[in-house]
Every structure is written in structure tokens, then in C-alpha cells.
């Protein structure tokens, strides 16, 4: 009889309709879709660079120097007669490669260290002092010094940007772990007798994944910007490699004669960073459980 009572009392529809999945919400968010599409376009451009803009981007042709943008040279030519369009297309390879590698390494390390730091007080104290020290210090200065000692090369850029960008990522992961660790669901799981390993896998990791994903897109954008800045001041990738930052180094001397040499590589750079930032913003909105709860 009591069971019948109970059911009568609970008689209430389960709140329909079902909440849309992450993918459904992503597709319905124009900013997310647009920024993601833009990134895919850049990635395709990097992958198929030799097909899109065949030829050696470094080939000099003084006869056509300072040609304004037109049908033959979409983005014009620079002071040595190099095709700016070709430079922009091929330059995306360096930029995206550095961005990707730096993001993967620094987020990977930050996740491991952040989890450790969130759970072991001793690790936390040491790591956080280190992070405090690095966080405030300008990464470019450090990377400049590093480039001086290690010599300009892609590997130097990757190493120094990783060192610089690991701190903010570590902070985000650790902060999230600390929040999740105190969440009541963890206490509830412990009280139920769920083993620690399983709590880690089923409770903590999924909860920290969203902020990691969001942070990754911001780190990616910071790495792209960092590579460009380092290359621009001449301590990034080697002078014979092509990147958007490198292209601007010399271009700046000709800004009054041929502004297009400055505008197009910079525009490509900005669009990439913009797309990454917008993606990060919309991911943050989409993954916020508070928003999901509000339907």
C-alpha cells in the first residue's frame, strides 16, 4: 500500500523534452559554427598549401617587386618580388604547426600536473610558486632570452612558448580540480564506496575536461600570436623559414610604399586568432553546466 502511495505522490512527468546534446547546441550556435569553419579552412589551406599556391614562396623576382594586389598576384608582391599570397598560404603551415604542438604539449602537461597539484598538497605548493613566478613574467622576454641561447629555430619557439603557456593552463586545470574535488558528488561517491581510481575516471576527469577544452583554444590562439611576435622581432623561427610573423619583419620597412605586404599576412594572423578566440568563447558558453541546466 505504501508503494502505491509513493507512486501517486511522485506522479509527475519527468521534465520533457530531453535537453539537446552538445553537438545539437553547437550546430545551433552561429559563432561556434563560423569560427570552427574558419579554422577548418585555415587547416585545409596549410595542408594543401602546395596545391593552392604552387611554387616556392621564397622565389625572388625583382622585376615585379611592389606589384599591388590584382588578378595575377592576389595579395601583390613584396620588395623582392615574392608573391604575398603564396607567402600567406605557406606561412599558415608554420603558424598552425607551432600552435598545435605547443597546445598539445602544454595542455597535456598542464592536465597531468594540474591533477597532481589538485590532489597532493606538496606538489601544489612547489608548482604554484613556480607558476606564480612565470605567470606574471612576460613570455616574450623569456622566449627572447631562450632564443638567444638556443638559437632561432622552430624547436626553440616551441620549447619557449610551451614553458610560457603551461602556467596559465596549469592554473585553470588546478582551479577546476580544486572545485570539483570539493563537490558534494565526490563525497557522495566516497560514501557509496566507489574506489578512488573510479572516482578519478568517472567523476573528476569528465568534470575538468570542459574547461581544458576551452582553455586549449585560448592557448592555441596565444601560441599563434606568440610565434608571430617572436618571429617578427627576429628571435623566432629561422630567417629562411616562412611564417606570417617573419613576413612582417621586413615588410614594415615598406609600409608607405606597399601597405599590402603588411596588411595581408597580418590579416591572416588576426583571423586565425579571432577564430580561435571565438571558438573558445562559444565552447565556454556551450559547455557551462549552469547554462545547460537552464535548458
Amino acid at each position, binding site marked *: 500500500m505504501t508503494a502505491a502511495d509513493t507512486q501517486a505522490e511522485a506522479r509527475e512527468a519527468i521534465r520533457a523534452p530531453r535537453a539537446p546534446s552538445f553537438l545539437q547546441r553547437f550546430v545551433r550556435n552561429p559563432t561556434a559554427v563560423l569560427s570552427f569553419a574558419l579554422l577548418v579552412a585555415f587547416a585545409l589551406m596549410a595542408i594543401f598549401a602546395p596545391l593552392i599556391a604552387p611554387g616556392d614562396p621564397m622565389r625572388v623576382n625583382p622585376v615585379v617587386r611592389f606589384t599591388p594586389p590584382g588578378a595575377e598576384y592576389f595579395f601583390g608582391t613584396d620588395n623582392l618580388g615574392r608573391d604575398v599570397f603564396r607567402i600567406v598560404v605557406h606561412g599558415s603551415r608554420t603558424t598552425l604547426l607551432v600552435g598545435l604542438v605547443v597546445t598539445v604539449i602544454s595542455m597535456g602537461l598542464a592536465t597531468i600536473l594540474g591533477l597532481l597539484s589538485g590532489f597532493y598538497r606538496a606538489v601544489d605548493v612547489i608548482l604554484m610558486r613556480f607558476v606564480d613566478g612565470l605567470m606574471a*613574467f612576460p613570455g616574450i622576454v*623569456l622566449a627572447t632570452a631562450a632564443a638567444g641561447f*638556443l638559437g632561432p629555430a622552430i624547436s626553440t619557439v616551441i620549447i619557449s612558448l610551451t614553458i610560457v603557456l603551461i602556467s596559465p593552463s596549469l592554473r585553470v586545470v588546478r582551479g577546476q580540480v580544486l572545485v570539483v574535488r570539493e563537490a558534494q558528488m565526490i563525497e557522495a561517491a566516497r560514501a557509496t564506496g566507489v574506489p578512488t581510481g573510479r572516482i578519478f575516471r568517472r567523476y573528476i576527469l569528465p568534470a575538468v575536461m570542459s574547461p581544458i577544452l576551452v582553455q586549449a583554444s585560448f592557448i592555441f590562439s596565444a601560441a599563434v600570436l606568440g610565434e608571430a611576435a617572436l618571429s617578427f622581432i627576429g*628571435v623566432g623561427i629561422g630567417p629562411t623559414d616562412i611564417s606570417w610573423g617573419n613576413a612582417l619583419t621586413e615588410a614594415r620597412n615598406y609600409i608607405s610604399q606597399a601597405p599590402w605586404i603588411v596588411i595581408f599576412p597580418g590579416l591572416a594572423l588576426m583571423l586565425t586568432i579571432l577564430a580561435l578566440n571565438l571558438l573558445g*568563447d562559444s565552447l565556454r558558453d556551450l559547455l557551462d553546466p549552469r547554462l545547460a541546466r537552464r535548458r
Partner: protein
Amino acid sequence: MLRYLAKRFLLILPTIFVPLIMVFLLLRLAPGDPAGMMLGDQATADQLAALRAELGLDQPLPVQFLLWLKGIFTLDLGNSIFFREPVMEVIPRYAGVTILLTLVALTLAIVIGVVMGVISALNRNNPVDRGVVTSAVLGISLPEFWFALLLIFLFSVTLRWFPVSGWTPPSAGLIAFGASIFLPALALGIRQSALMTRMMRSSMLDVMDEPYITTARAQGLPERKVIGSYAMRTASIPVLTVAGLAAGYMLGGAVAIEIVFALPGLGRMLVEAVARRDYPLVEGGVLTISLVLAVLNLVIDLLYAVLDPRIRYQ
């Protein structure tokens, strides 16, 4: 209050030492012989040995570390290889430009950020707000050295409102100084001002939903006072928190900006020192930037305590 300041001071020490230690290690652990790199191919064995002795590179690593520490505490950073004079005499010639540039840019960023953030928040979701939010996203994505080039192209080359490059110290007249620093500071501050706009906007939106704002309204205070002295007081606290990070970021960004505008600052000095393999000067530059940052952060912590009594009474 004193305890708070002491604690903040201790927390700032890593800000000074972690970058220095990293530079110290990089220099010693990097492949190749620093002395050889500094002197070039033509150096004799005697010259190399002399330089190694001068830099202490002939000592074991822990001894080097202690010597290095001693050098920092006595502010004896050795001689610049290139200038052939003590690092401590070279640096002040460059530091002023960078500090001024950073301070002006930081002020610009905070003012723009706070004003735009508040305007945006008060116009929540209408066209003004959307305009500010969109510009802020664009601003955050703007590489400052590229923006600097565009500014030069527009204002100096095309409109001829400002000098293309070069440095006029404040002693040569405030107007000339202002004209020479405005574009660099704007270029350096633009990204941070966009970040602060976003921060201020969201913080303001949060604060406007706080019950104590409703209380202030329920007490009949006019909206101008509710926003100006009740909401902004708390909403600006998070902006202050990021000001420290922004200052650090700007000291770094100054490197590229100084190059673009040909300003004789620390950043440019550092890049040149790196190119010349003038390691004592590099270390000195890093130390100076660390110290400037530490002082700035302490000032910010102090302001923080003034704005938020909850911290003072902890």
C-alpha cells in the same frame, strides 16, 4: 593589514626569481660554450679563459649559482660585453622608456576598459553593447605589432598626425612627449584594454544582479549613485586583479613595439643584446623587468586592499 602586505611581498619573490633562475639555467645548460659564442671565432684561448673566469663559468654549477645570487643581491651584474661598462650603468639608460611606455599603456587600457565595460554592461544586449562586445573580441585578436604598423600607416604616413617613430623624453616638453608615446602606448594597450572591457562588462553584469544593488535602489538612491559608487566599487576589483598580469604582458609586448617605433627601451636593448650574445646584459635586462613587475604588483596589491576591506581584515 601589515600581515597581508608581508604575505603579498613573499608571494612576489617567485615572480622575481623564477624567470631569473630559468635564464641562469638556460645560459649554463644550453649546448655550446657561452664564452666562445660571445667572443666569436677569432678569440684566443687566453681570451676565452679570461672571460670564463670573469663570468665564473669555470666554477662548478652550485658555486656559479651562489656567485650569481650574490651578484643579484649586491646589484653587481658584471660588465656588458658590448658596451664594456657595468650592466648596472647601461640598464638605466633604457629602462625609463619602457617603464613610461608600460605605465601609459596600462593607464590607457584601464581607462578604456573600465569605461567601455561599464557602457556595455549598462546597455546589456542592445546595439551599443553588441558593438562593444564585437570590438572587444576583435581587439583581443589583434597582434599588437601589426596593429602598430597599421597605426603608423594611418596616422603617421597617411594623415601625418604623429611622428613615424623615435623617442622624445618628457623633459623635452609634454606635448612632444605625448605625441611620441601616444601611438606606441595605444598599440601596446589595445589588446589589454579589450580584455579589460570584457572583464569589466561581465563583472559589472554580475554586480548589477547582486542583492546589495537592489538594496541601494530600494533605499531610493538615484541610479547614477547606485552605479557610480555602489556597483563600480566592487565591479572594478576583478579588473585590478588582471592589471598585474596585463602589466607583465605589456612589458613583453614592449619588445616588439619598441622595435616598430624605434624607441630606445629595454625590450629593444634585450633583443640586441641577445643578437650580440651579451649575456650579462641579457641577465640584467631580465632582472630589471622582474623588479619592475614586482613593484607594480605590490602597488596593485596595495590598491586591492584599499578597495576591498574583506582583505584587510583577514
